[in-house]
């Protein structure tokens, strides 16, 4: 992370610890951070990955987003947002059109809803599928390995 970006981030998001490899960002800052990064030249939309973290005090979800600057050195910024039992997050579709399919896939497989998404339906599985396969409580104890 270069100095100018660090200054900009520190000025705009004082609560975020910028020394981590993967920034931990509050859900409210998700969209503004992406907008700021896009202004700073991080225009390549790399990926979004949601994950399900069951715990003793209830379910938690993480949504990680990676943006990249297409220049020498390929600097990238990855940040994650921790969500509660009813996961929903601002969609990045207005900033990055690639978020359309990517967020639909995460909605499909993990079950994180993205607010403001233009077409929030399942991508990979059929629309009448029950459950979200990548959640940890989805079919955990099958009698045999499920890929057999």
């Amino acid at each position, binding site marked *: 992370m270069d100095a100018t970006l660090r200054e900009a981030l520190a000025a705009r998001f004082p609560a975020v610890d910028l020394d981590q490899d993967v920034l931990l960002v509050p859900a409210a800052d998700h969209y503004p951070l992406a907008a700021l990064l896009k202004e700073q030249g991080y225009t390549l939309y790399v990926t979004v990955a949601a994950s399900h973290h069951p715990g003793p005090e209830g379910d938690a979800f993480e949504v990680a987003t990676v943006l990249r600057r297409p220049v020498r050195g390929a600097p990238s910024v990855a940040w994650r947002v921790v969500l509660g039992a009813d996961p929903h997050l601002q969609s990045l579709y207005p900033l990055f059109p690639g978020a359309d399919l990517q967020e639909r896939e995460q909605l499909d497989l993990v079950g994180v809803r993205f607010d403001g998404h233009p077409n929030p339906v399942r991508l990979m599985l059929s629309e009448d599928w029950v459950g979200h396969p990548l959640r940890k409580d989805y079919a955990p104890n099958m009698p*045999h*390995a499920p*890929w*057999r």
Partner: protein
Amino acid sequence: MKHYLRGLHLALYETLRQGFKPRITQGMRSVEQHEERYRASFALTHNEHGEQACIACMQCSNVCPSHVIEVTAGPKEASPATGKKRGWAADYTLNLQACILCEMCVQVCPTDAIVMVKVQEKPGFSREDLVLTMDKLYANAKARPLAWANGSILREMQDPKREVKP
């Protein structure tokens, strides 16, 4: 102004030229036409004393990504040849229907018991034809050319302390 026909004669020349080159399609390859390291089906070997080499340590069964290997361990008994106590496999089944031929079982085998052979199983008419039982595996070792790799070779090749290649 658009053009429609330029350069097309070059393509005609090229296809006519290619017609005089050697044919590339052929029937199924024989074992000799494959490379030395070619791997296809499986076999169980005997050790230098003529005993079964498998000691039923379950490493292959554990490492298999598609869980196709089932080993039943027999009681531990002394080897007739060396007199040392060792494990014996009572049954060994490898289900080729789900096998992905990744060679991981060969790599982890401490006694080089399971190896691969160079000839593929022929398609069968029942599912049992593709289930390699212990008898079939031992028969494979005699009837088919063994592949290049076994556990010792693979582990020695990957050893970080290895200086020169074999």
